[in-house]
């Protein structure tokens, strides 16, 4: 199976496309069903944030192969309005869209590594890694 590194997020259906592709990559890498669900859910949250707040962007995948471990890296990038206060969006229950506010803090809990870079007006880049156990 070929490795498709990125999914463009332009319409709502792309959220489903991104998480399905992510789950396939996770399966091929040898993740168990629970981790596959964690990864697919994390991708779904990240892709929805792009769609809701930036309109367009992309979700990319990278396989990390290190001597002692391998993992899947998800990179979600958009050129949207950015996040003014990152500590605020990382709080459980904070939402500007009427959602549950579970998105980003949830993604952080589902994944092993989580990094967010954002500047107001410059867009947002989020990197999340799950290691194969």
């Amino acid at each position, binding site marked *: 199976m070929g490795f498709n590194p990125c999914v463009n997020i332009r319409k709502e*259906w792309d959220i489903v496309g991104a998480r399905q592709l992510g789950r396939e990559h996770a399966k091929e890498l040898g993740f168990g069903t*629970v981790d596959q*669900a964690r990864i697919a*859910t994390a991708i779904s949250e990240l892709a*929805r944030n792009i769609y809701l707040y930036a309109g367009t962007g992309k979700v990319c995948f990278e396989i990390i192969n290190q001597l002692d471990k391998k993992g899947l890296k998800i990179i979600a990038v958009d050129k949207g309005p950015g996040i003014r206060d990152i500590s605020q969006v990382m709080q459980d229950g904070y939402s500007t869209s009427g*959602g*549950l506010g*579970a998105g980003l803090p949830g993604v952080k*809990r*589902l994944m092993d590594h989580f990094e967010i870079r954002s500047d107001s007006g410059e867009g947002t880049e989020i990197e999340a890694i799950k290691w194969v156990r």
Partner: protein
Amino acid sequence: MRIPILKLHNYLLISIQIDLDDQTAIQFQEDLLNKIHKSGATGVVIDLTSVDIIDSFIAKVLGDVVTMSDLMGAKVVLTGIQPAVAMTLIELGIHLQDVQTALDLEQGLIKLRQELEG
């Protein structure tokens, strides 16, 4: 895409067998409430056996439809939530506390009957 809603006596049965996108989920919410209104159903079972991902949006739609149905006088039971889905939901921070659940469709119907017929 529309999710089929089946009527069985005064219950409605739904088995979600597709990867839910946001639009389909919202359409389902509306369809179910209309069907409750038209059929006068008093109980609803939504079976999630084939659903392998529930993210925060889908969870919100499901939680909302339970509350909305309750407002209309119909009790909803969610059934068949997979282990991986249950774990993911809790890690996401979603507890769906006021939602009735059961292991499978059969248990869901038993639960409804107990609740509705006392």
